[in-house]
């Protein structure tokens, strides 16, 4: 029996835009994620996928319901929950190395240990030789590698990824997906991964959660029963195509609802 790592219980969230009507983003949402599980969340635009992640990150105030990690209530951001954003969110005034070191500054270790650890993760994301580059000098794919290294180096319990490859070109995305699979194989973090890309969700995940159009609820959960370790080879299998079709048609129904067209 695997241990529950993350628990959402009857979570509700309403956005209040500065000059507009409140928008109900999430409604009575409950979800369990097991330790070492890779779970993706897909759904139409505006369904609250990212809101879900931001609530777990502690970035938005939880109004109703409860979110726990290892049984502890989430109330504010913390280093137990690392996050990678779509637009990288690197500190532009810090070099690659300084970005990766930032999360280690508050850990009790000497600077030699810090540098060694930072180097290990810079090597892991294949940025050896770019330690002293500024983010502005890097391509999108390289920036996201830095962001991944910056988050993993602090060894968070849970990794939150908010459409991390959504801003990258198709080739770079494919390469980074495979690398994430390889890195995940080594670290086995619990991952909650938000994406628009059904193909990506099936490739990476143990389980794919399909969310309904706003207000966001869980529509269906699809277990992805594909062998691990995986690489892009798996995408050629019959089963892979089957999962993609199934999830894609579920998302499509909701996307039609979201765009106001009757399904």
């Amino acid at each position, binding site marked *: 029996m695997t241990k529950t790592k993350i628990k959402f219980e009857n979570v509700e969230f309403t956005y209040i835009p500065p000059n507009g009507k409140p928008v109900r983003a999430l409604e009575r949402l409950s979800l369990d994620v097991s330790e070492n599980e890779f779970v993706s969340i897909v759904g139409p635009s505006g369904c609250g996928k990212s809101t879900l992640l*931001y609530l777990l*990150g*502690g*970035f938005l105030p939880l109004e109703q319901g409860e979110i726990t990690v290892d049984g502890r209530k989430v109330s*504010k*951001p*913390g*280093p137990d*929950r*690392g*996050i990678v*954003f779509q*637009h990288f*969110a690197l*500190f*532009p*005034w*810090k070099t690659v190395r300084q970005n990766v070191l*930032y*999360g280690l*500054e*508050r*850990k009790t270790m000497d600077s030699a240990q810090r540098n060694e650890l930072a180097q290990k993760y810079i090597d892991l994301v294949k940025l050896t030789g770019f330690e002293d*580059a*500024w*983010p*502005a*000098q890097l391509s999108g794919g390289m920036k996201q590698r830095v962001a991944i290294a*910056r*988050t993993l180096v*602090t060894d*968070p319990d849970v990794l939150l990824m908010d459409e991390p490859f959504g801003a990258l070109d198709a080739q770079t995305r494919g390469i980074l997906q495979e690398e994430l699979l390889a890195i995940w194989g080594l670290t086995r973090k619990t991952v909650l991964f938000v994406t628009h890309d059904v193909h990506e969700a099936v490739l990476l995940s143990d389980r794919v959660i399909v969310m309904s159009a706003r207000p966001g609820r869980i529509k269906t959960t699809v277990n992805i029963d594909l062998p691990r370790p995986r690489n892009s080879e798996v995408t050629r299998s019959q089963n892979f195509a089957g999962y993609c079709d199934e999830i894609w048609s579920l998302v499509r129904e909701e996307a039609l609802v979201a765009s106001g067209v009757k399904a």
Partner: protein
Amino acid sequence: MTKVAIRYAPIGLIVILWELSSRTGLVSQDVLPAFSDVMVRLWQLSADGEMLVHVSASLFRITCGLALGIVVGSTLGFLLAASITAQRLVQPTLTFLYPLPKSALIPVIIIWLGFGNSAQIMVIFLGSLLPIVLGAYNGAKGVENTLIWSARSLGANAIETEWHVIIRAALPDLLAGIRVALALSFVLLISSEMVGAQRGMGFLVAFLGDGGDYAGMFAGAFVISAIGFAADRAYLALYHHLLRYREA
């Protein structure tokens, strides 16, 4: 080399035209003393130490006023961005002061603070305050949430996030505000010295002009422009150095 020549050729041309129009009597020497006379006067005023006294008085005032403006202005701007209460308290005053020409305050401040350094320093401080407050405020307000959230989820607390991320990310806007303040400070320095000082470049120019020494007056104006130009160049060099991470 040719590029430099093309850039500075117009200035050379203006100097030549200036010299010619004055020497040929096209323009009266009382209105426009010849460039060479101005340079001679500049040399004389510099050689007898007169110029240095006034330059140092002016530099002292602008340094104090601007430094005060930077410290108070950036603190205020960051506070306003961080606290809604602070914003509610201070915003109306700022909105009221914003369109007010700061030079209008010069006579009032001289009445309050007299003819010493403090009046000019106060005028410069008040004039530089608003662009700096706005620079800091807009910079801090414009910081992307994801940068703040990244820092928080990497273990930084709220105070560390303010120092390491918000103030750091606001730097480009703050520095742009300070540059505006720097230019404004020169205007306020010179105009306040013209009416309420016994030393300083503004005083010197007004004094020489009143005494009919037009070449001397032009020499003074020349020094003011040179200092202003050098200050702006030096500031730009600092600006580009501090923001070098953006220029990759």
